[in-house]
């Protein structure tokens, strides 16, 4: 069943993104930024946690989960170090994703030629 929920949730988030792109002047940059903020906001009341439990990979793949993971890392450290912990832990859970993206993008850029 988790595959069905994965499909439905990831599809649903993308569907909303596409509706925004088609009906407003917002660019993909706007949409992804808005979704990250929404992901973080949904974690104020642990809503995104429940979505992850329910939809698994389907909830982790959309960019909304990036906001959720930033929040989680920050709050985990805030438990130990109070407000200062927010900054200490912010990138704890997202670091591997961001760093892989940076390193991979950099070396691929060195290897490959741009199209134009």
């Amino acid at each position, binding site marked *: 069943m988790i*595959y069905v929920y*994965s*499909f439905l949730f*990831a*599809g649903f988030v*993308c*569907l909303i*993104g*596409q*509706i*925004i*792109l*088609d*009906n407003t002047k917002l660019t*993909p*940059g706007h*949409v*992804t*930024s808005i979704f*990250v*903020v929404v*992901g*973080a906001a949904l*974690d*104020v009341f642990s809503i995104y946690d429940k979505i992850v439990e329910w939809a*698994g*990979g*389907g*909830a*982790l*793949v*959309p*960019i909304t*989960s*990036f*906001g959720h993971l*930033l*929040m989680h890392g*920050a*709050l985990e450290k*805030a*438990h130990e170090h109070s*407000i200062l912990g927010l*900054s200490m832990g*912010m990138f704890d859970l997202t670091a*591997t*994703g*961001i760093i*892989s*993206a*940076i390193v*991979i*993008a*950099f070396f*691929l*850029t060195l290897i*490959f030629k*741009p*199209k*134009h």
Partner: protein
Amino acid sequence: MPKPGKMYNAMKAFIVGGSVGVIGQLLIDVFTKWLDIPEKEANTYMIIVLVFFASLFTAMGFFDNFVSWARAGLIVPITGFAHAMTSASLEYKREGLITGIGSNIFKISGSVILYGVVAAYVFGIIRYLLFGG
């Protein structure tokens, strides 16, 4: 009533985005059940695999066509983040390592990090004050 073109775009985004979600879950299952990787690490490996292939296909030159076809279906998942980064850095490659790649690699993906961090900070404080973490 939305125009048929918009309906078609929305369907494409739904199906492609949903499929990326299914691939994500499939990878997590492969990592946890076949390779015995703990779930939290498996989630991260899944993200890395998707980032790697999205970046590789972007660098090879054909992911741009996928993205302009599927639109939000590939932009909203983490594949869009990787695509934005690799395509920006490739586009500015000829301007050099520093002023080209260095200054532009975060051109599009930077705003995701910026607003993600600011939002998580503000909401983090709110949640910390409300629930103590």
